[in-house]
């Protein structure tokens, strides 16, 4: 155990013991990581197999890892009358696209100004933004502001505006832009370029890695948002995907009525349980498909963030 005994031993014994330790660690490592990986992916497999189970089998035996009888009824029902689901998709896609575009633009523009060392009030403005993470009025005044004073209830804007800017993203972006040499801004100024032009034509192209990472974070926040809809959306045509899913999970009676109204089901024999799981899969689908590809950008972004601190 102690290093003194180890150094007395001949190199040969050392190597042998080293190999044994490495093997032990490898066993521990591979086993633990495999268990953790299964732990992370298992619930998704459960949902997929439940969505492909026959409803009667679920009622009788419950959700199972391997469906005892296979059925795609839940999916065909979902896609038979897809109007509501597609509308929710439409809301989420437009909110995510518009929000990410504007959010990224405003975040990076703000970050650029705060990264300019020659800007006299950069400290004061940085504190102005940062202070909002320290203290807030709380949920109630924020809610009343949006509903009673900005009159944003039941508008598409209420799904976009609250998530538009985030102090944390501004800080990360600022620290990335601070690593771009001042000489670039300086020489452009000498050539007569304005600040906005310097930002758009020089800084933005140089900040691509940070823009990609922050853009993905913003997009993920919009895609997964259900909270603002919970608070501010009551019109069904403005429901984003996650809130639609939330509503349906909690209210299968409502779903039944909606489906009966659209002629999807005639009576009450709706495959409730498998339908819930199928809806979860359909609502998660794009993220599940896209995430292995976008994951590497997150990893790079997080790595930059962690090293820079």
């Amino acid at each position, binding site marked *: 155990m102690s290093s003194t005994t180890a150094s007395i031993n001949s190199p040969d014994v050392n190597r042998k013991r080293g190999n044994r330790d490495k093997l032990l660690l490898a066993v521990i490592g591979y086993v633990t*990581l495999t268990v953790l990986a299964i732990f992370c992916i298992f619930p998704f497999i459960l949902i997929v197999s439940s969505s492909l189970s026959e409803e009667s089998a679920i009622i009788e035996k419950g959700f199972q890892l391997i469906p005892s009888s296979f059925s795609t009824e839940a999916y065909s029902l979902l896609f038979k009358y897809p109007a509501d689901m597609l509308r929710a998709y439409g809301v989420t896609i437009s909110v995510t696209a518009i929000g990410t575009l504007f959010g990224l633009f405003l975040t990076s*523009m703000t970050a650029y100004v705060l990264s300019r060392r020659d800007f006299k009030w950069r400290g004061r403005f940085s*504190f102005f933004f940062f202070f909002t993470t320290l203290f807030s009025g709380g949920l109630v005044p924020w809610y009343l502001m949006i509903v009673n004073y900005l009159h944003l209830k039941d508008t598409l804007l209420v799904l976009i505006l*609250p998530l538009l800017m985030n102090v944390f993203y501004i800080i990360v972006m600022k620290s990335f832009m601070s690593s771009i040499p001042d000489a670039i801004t300086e020489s452009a100024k000498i050539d007569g370029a304005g*600040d906005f032009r310097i930002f758009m034509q020089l800084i933005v192209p140089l900040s691509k890695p940070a823009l990609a990472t922050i853009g993905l974070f913003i997009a993920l926040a919009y895609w997964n948002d259900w909270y603002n809809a919970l608070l501010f959306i009551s019109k069904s045509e403005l429901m984003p995907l996650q809130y639609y899913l939330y509503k349906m999970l909690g209210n299968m009676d409502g779903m039944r009525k909606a489906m009966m109204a659209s002629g999807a089901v005639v009576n009450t024999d709706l495959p409730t349980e498998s339908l819930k*799981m199928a809806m979860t899969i359909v609502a998660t689908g794009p993220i599940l498909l896209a995430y292995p590809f976008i994951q590497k950008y997150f*990893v790079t972004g997080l790595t930059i963030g962690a090293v820079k601190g």
Partner: protein
Amino acid sequence: MKQKQHGFWDDVKKYRSLLLMLVPAVLFFLLFAYIPMSGIILAFKQYDYTGGVFGSPWNGWDNFKFFFNSGDAWRVTRNTALYNIAFIVVNNVVQIFAAILLFEVAGKWFRKITQTVLFLPYFISWVVVGAIAYNLFNFDVGTINVLLKGLGMQPVDIYNTAAYWPVILVVVSAWKTLGYGTIMYLAAITSIDTEMYEAAEIDGANIFQRIMKITVPNLMPTVIILVLLAIGNVFRGDFGMFYNMVGNNGLLFSSTDVIDTFVFRSLTTSNEIGMSAAAGFYQSLLGFVTIMLANYAVRKYDKDRALF
């Protein structure tokens, strides 16, 4: 004399384009953060819809008295703090453990696949997590009860038993944040000077000694900073998590109600605007004090990593 010539308005003129570029952000934070801050006066008012925020009559400390006498104040404060402390401890331990193992043993393809899989839960919404929980914990058809029945045991009524939830919520939090945190720590491990490992190997240290004597101590600065920063948020509950996992299930409130769910409920279901604002104000104050204390600690520990 020269100072006078170069006044405030000269600066405004000099920086006009930069200031213009800040206008949207300033406006955003005024509307969504600073003006709502003035709404904390609601905590001292008897809110009525005709009067609005500023026209409603004052009622002194009544909202606070109501909140603290309801018996909810202590429960939600305790729950919020205890859950966050449990999340901090468990999540960080698991993440560090996973990061060390990924760094030490994993071959390239194994590391790639594992990292991808561990990151998966981070990408899904809390609503989907809620659906997963339903799949697992439902009394009649839930997977856990299927398993228990298969083993000839009694099914458990998880959604009606408060005692299970602290464990469930801690596990779910670890599950959802595992990939994110592991990558942060993996990045920190990767930046450790490899010469230290080589020197240790020459000195005859085995792989476990190297982990305990080099990797872990070198990770400590990152751990301490992340933990201190997390402690600053100990009175902020993750609303999305609690609300989607538990919802408005009154049977579980004793062990699942946090300040955020309490404030939300008082605002939306019982319409207690004044008391809800008072509870929110109380949370903001607690949060402010803990952030200041945590930042003070970070400053003591490593000046460069402090927030301010």
